[in-house]
């Protein structure tokens, strides 16, 4: 479904990614784990067109998307829930969700997707009329994911959904991510919380200083010594 080859991205003189290759198959949850500054967010942003790729190819459903603008990529069915929750703080939760469906005009279908998103996130339903900035961190994250679902994505890109959240809320959110996947949405999940990410993912990539250091089955990687030492904090 998504095939990234030799992706390189620089911010000015600083090279953030040198030659990242990864692949996501339809129906999978693939996770990209790594420490701070490894280039996880940059990879995700390059895929969704928020930053320009210097070199390499990005193919989505057989079509090259490396040169497309972010808004064109959204129309192809790829939706990105940005890091740090990236919600619209002064709008109501409802308005946030409506903006998620910004590219769509099929009103009755939008209503269905809204209903589905609200079923997945009952907390979001309770907060519909509230200004999004007043929500708790976990609730804001839920809004961000629900909003991304409103575009009815075939591929959902999630950037650190566990960032700064209490462990219990992380549990809830990851359970919902798995639900979303089981309903047929392919997911590329960027995470620092390797423990949680490896639990729900099918396959995983480990990113270190802008390059893929390891890849493989998520369960296998979780057992490997290097990953256990570096990312799971077990000796």
């Amino acid at each position: 479904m998504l095939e990234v080859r030799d992706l390189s991205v620089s911010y000015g003189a600083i090279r953030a990614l040198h030659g990242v290759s990864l692949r996501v198959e339809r129906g999978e949850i693939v996770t990209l784990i790594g420490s701070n500054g490894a280039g996880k967010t940059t990879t995700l942003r390059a895929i969704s067109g928020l930053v320009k790729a210097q070199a390499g190819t990005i193919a989505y459903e057989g079509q090259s998307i490396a040169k497309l603008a972010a808004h064109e990529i959204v129309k192809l069915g790829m939706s990105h829930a940005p890091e740090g929750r990236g919600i619209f703080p002064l709008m109501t939760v409802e308005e946030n969700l409506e903006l998620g469906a910004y590219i769509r005009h099929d009103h009755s279908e939008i209503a269905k997707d809204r209903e589905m998103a609200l079923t997945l996130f009952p907390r979001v339903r309770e907060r519909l009329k509230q200004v999004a900035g007043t929500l708790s961190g976990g609730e804001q994250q839920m809004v961000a994911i629900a909003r991304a679902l409103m575009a009815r994505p075939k591929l959902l890109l999630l950037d650190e959904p566990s960032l700064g959240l209490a462990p219990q809320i992380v549990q809830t959110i990851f359970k919902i991510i798995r639900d979303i996947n089981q309903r047929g949405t392919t997911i590329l999940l960027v995470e620092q919380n390797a423990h949680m990410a490896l639990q729900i993912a099918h396959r995983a990539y480990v990113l270190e200083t802008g390059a893929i250091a390891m890849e493989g089955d998520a369960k296998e990687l979780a057992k490997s010594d290097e990953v256990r030492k570096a990312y799971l904090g077990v000796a």
Partner: protein
Amino acid sequence: MKTLAQHISEISPARAFRPVAVFVPWVVCVLLALAVHFVSPLLVNEYWESVLQRMGVFIVAAVSLNIVNGFTGQFSMGHAGFMAIGGYIGAGVTYYGSLILHGSVGDPNFAVQGTLLMLAGLVAGACTAAGAGYLVGLPSLRLRGDYLAIVTLGFGEIIRVLLELTPKQVSDAAAVKASPIVSFFGFNGATGFAGTPAYANLFWIWLFVAITCVIAYRMKTSSSGRAFLSIREDEIAARAMGVDLTKYKVRAFVLAAFFGGVAGALYSHTGVNPSPTDAGFQRSFDIIIMVVLGGLGSVSGSVLAAMILVLMPELLRDLQQYRLVLYALLLIVMMLVRPKGLFGVKEIWDLSRGDRKQPVGKGGTP
């Protein structure tokens, strides 16, 4: 409470053509303009009529600036530049047009044609300003915050200096006819362009006030309005939702500049001579203050703030030289009492419905 989406679906369910919804606001615009035009002479003298004209011009200016500074959150400080472009082009079309077509300027027998010339000049001025808005809008794609403010400030100053360098005004009809294009740029340098007849009466000014407000409010409540507001709140998230940043930022600048040009063209037809200082930052600041005071993103806020800020110096005239001190003091007090402007991003009619909790700061509580 109705959400924006419900409003939109009521206004345009699946883009169906609804003549009532489409035409009624424009009819209301004309009626309002007629009302102001015919009622105000009964209530106030000529001096206050001129204040009403000035008020209308600044409402148009403030509401149009709100499209950029309020809706999209780009900080433009060069709005007076767009106004001056519209003002000079508009005045030029009327003045030199009258000379060419009639041989003299301001002849009462030529008033009807003169008014048509004013409207032509208004369109020409607004379109030129919109073109300039396009050029100024482009850097907004790469610059934000303070840096964009500096660029737009620079734009206004460039217009001011260019206007100071314009050649002398030509008042001889034969000379204008001989070389119309060269004479058209005779804007009389630093002295200012004099002699444009005051064709912009209360009807025309308030007609454009109403039109500008209707268009701005419709923009705000349409789906593209949502796109503007999303850019203002979080550019990355807006792009991730599929909002075309380039298109909307440039569109905001072009529209704001267009109506800024309208405001300028109207102003130069109220008997006020346009001069290069009209493009300077003092004027730009005046308009920014109106927008901020009214609330960034609030159309009705800009209208009310423009009214207050035009009226205040007039009402305080008895205090003579102290009035500007008091004026500044009132501004400070207002910003202390209502730091988000009069209405924030809301409209005056939203205020009674207090069911929306406002967050304390950007991002709210974690």
